[in-house]
């Protein structure tokens, strides 16, 4: 069995049972999502984001740890920067040559979102990861996939489910050789004003890679959080303050706009207070929201045929800070959501020292951003220019981000029952808490053998799946129903992890492969007479068939023709026939080199001289076992040999030796007899090949 181990170790990557899941980003952190899957020689990258708290090359995931050109497939879950921000760089600046997929809505928004990102990044041009032109040309390399549509890329099957979260957000189910992996991306199981709740797949994945942004938090109810939000906005503007809501330009902002617009229309007293939404990007993407209604919830789907819910009545667009007249109370929604730079930062800096004003952080904040910092309510903050300014405005945090919370995650897992869970996209502590909570939750059930992993960046989770390999037997081979012990021989065709066993004759019928034939014809000079050639060939190959005049068939497969001192060999190519052809060729060359051609050839015995064989056999046995071991005279084809009192019978007709007393003797005599027979008998070739 030692050989077996050796065989296992030399198994090529595509036959190995090892599934490795390695976060290159978003491993025990939030931001720069990028997870590598490797299984059966296929390499798949899930998301390719940047870290919002870092800039330039530092913001990239650890993609230098993988060979970009070996990646077969890249799937983008949704359009947020921490999931697709590095994509133009990856597509344009690396050797990646696989295929890249995202949903229609994601692709349409991705184009404008990243173009906006390029514009607002305040880093020097040499540090820019990519330009507008790179982004533009990356569009051609991105393919689209509809929800539930099944795609197959070189044997990797995958399809997308609605993930809630933002428009076009997808969860990907990936199936490689029967093993299913579900990558949730960011998801939310709560239906909101325009998005549907994340779908629950109807197949059970073997591995679940899920986000853990909110760890063990439980979101407050939608109604509660909405009313808390609206009353907070109301109180800020009625106390005469300005209300700043830093938001990510697309995604949750649309939800907040729907809420505010509705609230304003219900409260006529607020009509004097303007609501601004400072985003040209959102304006640009309006058409996208109008078009891809099929990715939204049923309410919107029904409504869009009548009127467009995204035509706001109380909200004005603000082109930039230059167009903004800062007089009196107002509500401003501005991007970016974490106030790293841009308009939301500018407004915050100019408003933060007035206690009447208020800022409402409505989404998730990454460590290292201003938004995260002010949540700890510091006395002062540092402006972009480096000054220190006191922070007096009210700071509130109402989470509107459509990420799953503990209850949702737990229920999701309960339904899917994945044997392995890999946590990504969450801060270290949150992730640990979630892991512990989930283990505690599911350990009560003794049947459950759920494994939970929370790998750090670049650390791979390695799982073994003994995938079953089944082949389909088709056509002639399958005529007989399978019976144990039957021998099956045929051609095994392997394509995309599917195996097909066929008879060579059926190959054309059941696959697109074609069987071909190659005929070879070799020629050389030969001066000698044909009978010399024939003699040599007969010595070599046994009986030579004479087909017609000057045409011989040797080994039953090589045709030799002698015309005008030129020998031509013709045969159907195959490894064995080629070998025979080379032998014949050698014989021809040998015949050529014979100088004195004898007038008459000794006839080569084509039949075995049995008497001669018997004599030789006697002699040999006497040499081996002594003079007395064999009887001096014998008749017929029976002979026996006696050694140390043990007798072995030899049947010369069938060349079988029998000795019941001593097996060893039987073998020795058998070998001797067969070898002798073979050396004396004329050459014979098994032409069945």
């Amino acid at each position, binding site marked *: 069995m030692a050989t077996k181990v050796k*065989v296992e170790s030399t198994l090529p990557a595509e036959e190995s049972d090892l599934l490795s899941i390695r976060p290159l980003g978003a491993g025990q952190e939030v931001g720069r999502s990028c997870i590598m899957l490797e299984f059966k020689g296929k390499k798949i990258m899930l998301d390719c984001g940047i870290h919002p708290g870092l800039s330039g090359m530092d913001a990239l995931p650890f993609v230098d740890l993988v060979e970009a050109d070996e990646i077969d497939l890249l799937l983008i879950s949704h359009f947020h920067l921490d999931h697709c921000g590095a994509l133009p760089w990856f597509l344009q600046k690396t050797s990646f040559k696989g295929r890249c997929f995202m949903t229609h809505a994601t692709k349409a928004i991705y184009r404008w979102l990243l173009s906006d990102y390029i514009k607002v990044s305040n880093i020097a041009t040499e540090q820019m990861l990519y330009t507008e032109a790179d982004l533009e040309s990356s569009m051609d390399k991105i393919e689209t996939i509809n929800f539930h549509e099944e795609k197959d890329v070189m044997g990797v099957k995958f399809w997308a489910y609605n993930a809630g979260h933002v428009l076009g957000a997808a969860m990907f189910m990936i199936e490689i050789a029967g093993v299913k992996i579900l990558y949730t991306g960011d998801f939310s199981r709560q239906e909101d004003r325009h998005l549907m709740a994340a779908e629950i797949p109807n197949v059970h994945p*073997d591995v679940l890679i899920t986000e853990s942004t909110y760890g063990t938090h439980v979101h407050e109810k939608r109604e509660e959080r909405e009313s808390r939000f609206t009353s907070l906005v109301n109180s800020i503007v009625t106390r005469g303050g300005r209300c700043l809501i830093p938001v990510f330009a697309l995604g949750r902002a649309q939800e907040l706009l729907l809420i505010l617009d509705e609230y304003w229309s219900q409260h006529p007293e607020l009509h004097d207070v303007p609501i601004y939404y400072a985003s040209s990007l959102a304006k640009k993407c309006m058409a996208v929201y109008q078009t891809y209604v099929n990715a939204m919830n049923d309410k919107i789907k029904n409504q869009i045929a009548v009127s*467009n819910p995204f035509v706001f009545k109380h909200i004005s667009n603000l082109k930039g800070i230059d167009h903004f007249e800062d007089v009196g109370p107002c509500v401003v929604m501005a991007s970016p959501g974490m106030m790293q730079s841009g308009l939301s930062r500018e407004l915050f800096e100019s408003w933060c020292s007035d206690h009447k004003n208020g800022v409402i952080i409505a989404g998730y904040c990454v460590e290292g951003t201003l938004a995260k910092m002010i949540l700890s309510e510091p006395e002062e903050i540092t402006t972009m220019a480096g000054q220190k300014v006191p922070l007096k405005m009210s700071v509130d945090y109402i989470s509107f981000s459509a990420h799953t919370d503990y209850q949702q995650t737990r229920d999701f897992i309960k339904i899917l029952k994945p044997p392995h869970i890999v946590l990504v996209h969450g801060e270290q502590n949150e992730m640990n808490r979630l892991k512990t909570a989930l283990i505690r939750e599911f350990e009560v059930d003794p049947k459950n053998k759920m494994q939970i992993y929370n790998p750090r960046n670049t650390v791979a989770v390695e799982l073994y799946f003994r995938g079953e390999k089944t082949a389909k037997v088709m056509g002639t081979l399958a005529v007989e129903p399978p019976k144990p012990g039957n021998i099956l021989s045929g051609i095994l065709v392997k394509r995309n992890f599917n195996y097909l066993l066929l008879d060579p004759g059926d190959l054309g019928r059941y696959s697109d492969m074609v069987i*071909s034939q190659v005929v070879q014809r070799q020629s050389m000079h030969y001066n000698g007479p044909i009978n010399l050639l024939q003699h040599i060939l007969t010595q070599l190959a046994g009986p030579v068939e004479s087909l017609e005049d000057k045409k011989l068939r040797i080994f039953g497969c090589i045709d030799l023709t002698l015309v005008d001192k030129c020998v031509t060999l013709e045969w159907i190519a195959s490894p064995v026939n080629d070998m025979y052809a080379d032998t014949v060729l050698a014989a021809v060359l040998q015949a050529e080199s014979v100088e004195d051609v004898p007038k008459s050839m000794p006839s080569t015995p084509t039949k075995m001289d049995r008497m001669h064989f018997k004599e030789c056999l006697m002699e040999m046995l006497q040499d081996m076992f002594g003079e007395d071991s064999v009887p001096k005279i014998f008749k017929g084809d029976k002979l026996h040999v006696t050694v140390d009192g043990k007798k072995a019978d030899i049947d010369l007709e069938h060349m079988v030796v029998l000795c019941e007393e001593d097996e060893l003797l039987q073998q020795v005599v058998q070998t001797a007899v067969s070898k002798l027979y073979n050396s004396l008998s004329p050459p014979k070739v098994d032409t069945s090949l």
Partner: protein
Amino acid sequence: MPSIIKLHAISGAQDESPPCYLLQVDEFRFLLDCGWDEKFNPNFIKELKRYAGQIDAVLLSFPDQQHLGALPYMVGKCGLSCPIYATIPVYKMGQMFMYDLYQSRTNMEEFDIFSLDDVDAAFDKIIQLKYNQTITLKGKGYGLTITPLPAGHMIGGTMWKVVKMGEEDIVYAIDFNHKKERHLNGCDLEKLARPSLLITDAANCMNEQERRRVRDEKLMTNILQTLRKGGNVLIAVDTAGRVLEISHMLDQLWRNKESGLMAYSVVLLNNVSYNVVEFAKSQIEWMSDKLMKTFEGARNNPFQFKHIQLCHSISELNKVPSPKVVLASSPDMESGFSRDLFVQWCSNPLNSIIVTRRTTPGTLARILIEKETSPFTIPLEVKKRVPLEGAELDAYLRSEKGKSLSNIKSEEYSSDESDNEMEQVALGKHDLVVKQEVKTKTGFFKSNKKQFPMYPFYEEKIKYDEYGEIVRPEDYKMTDLTLEAEEEVVNKENVQVKEEEMPAVDINEVPTKCVTTVRNLHVAAMIRFIDFEGRSDGSSLNKIVAQLKPHRLLIVKGNPESIQFMANYCRKSTDAKVLTPKTGDVVDATTETHIYQVKLTDALLSSLEFKKIKDAEIAWLDSKLAQKEVDEVIYSEDVTMSESVLGAEIPTLEPVKDLSLSHHATFINKLRLSDFMVVVKKAGYHCEFSGGILQCCNGTIALRKLESGTVTMEGCISPEYYQIRDLLYSQYAIV
């Protein structure tokens, strides 16, 4: 164990009647399409009715009447209650087709074959799918999966792939289009290769298409000439399928400033035009790559028409200044606005009438195609709905009085409700509201500068309830034509509501009757047939079928000659068994394919030497079927049902130690000498082609390919001979 496959052609075999086939795979019965012809021929429906209870699933290919026309009747009147599978656009547009058809018919006659309730009941049964979404059937259909694949022709158009687990794959593909069009991609043939059964049609088999440019130019010239002369153009199109292609093209033509078309009007006229365009707008992801790309790049929706005006009635159309181009449904001109306009316009030699598809023989459009040279006179049945007058009205009112007392309650409810809604809405033309909305779309937000209210929303607020936008009947009051009933339902369609009581109520309120007169119409207008069917034409159809290489080919639909033509072509070029059933026939398409599954052990696989060839790998395998044993290593408990059930009975293959097994070497691949020449040249040998023979190394070695596919290699003995031979062998996978 091979499955039993039978096909019962209820309609649409060896003729041009609508497709409707009953496909039986073992115990499971699919109804493939459920079409009805333009004249609602009752004969085959009788036949179909008998099977209503036995059908387990309906698969729809396209949203038009030809492919799903009988569905409302079957569901509403015959109790068909199985799930129906269709893509999202087929679902949405199919509804539009049926609403429009119902409305057009009601406008001209007492139509009771199905009601709008039936339409909604039928469409409620539809399970909406995306392309390439695989559905696993349960219960009786255990082991069957169905997958819709893009077919072109109409938005959401589907070729169905039905797979019996691990053995049969049946492809049902009719009326597909392999060519890319303006708004649609061509059909996806890649995933169909070598089906065990292909069900297709030969309807277009004998027709050759003009090139797209020639065709488009023909349409364009025709339109321009007629308009310049001051005539109107009537283009008979369908409700929500091919009309998208033509309307998109016309809108693009009108946008071209040099076309000289800006001065004229172009109108899309059918009962549901507003909704059709709205749905088209939200289905960009189902359209061609090119449209999608422009949308992603420039964010302009291709169905945000700049020039095409939407009309829902003749009176609306009359307000549009002539000369004009009108795209009106239906394509067969048996009903709908296209027939009305034909009656109005055909006598004027300045007008022109364009038919865009070959409809069933006997329909007006088909008669026109066959004549094509005007002027001529045809007798035509003109049906009209007119309000009752005088004595008739009195009699009617008297008889209705008794009836209405009984169901007064429900009526009151519905009319009250609509009355209230009506009052809330300000005066104005409905279409104006629609237009307003279109304009404001660019303004995502409220105008920033309040002092210049560009879009006075406050006055124009669109109110809606759970049924959709509120209807204002004043919008639809007609001044010239007083077809009250029609108007009401037009409103209803516009807002896409589901209250079906309305037409009934209308008839109660304004009694009407239908009159039929036969008139001899003198047709003087120019009649043209321009093929906008968007289906694969004769030669490509044959090529595609031959290329798919089905094991069995079942040809339905199409006249007998074209079916014969296609059958002969396929018998010649493939090894397929060709079946051509007649209507009413039941054909047995069971294949005698032998097939079973085996498990491969790791030890066996690692002993194999795989050779790469194209995208596959092959190896010679000698193996022994192992004795049954309990397989303990199951990697997870959550393998899906099907896998674990199958796993129980799958035999295992093991390697054999017996070395005496031998086999002939097999060379696999199809070599092209021209490709090989490149290889030889790359390896640094001189070679050239002469007379179909590849000469290498100064003519000492010659390669030729015989007709049988055999490659011969000839040459003097030399080192080069062996080197070239090695190169040649490297082109094959040898096992």
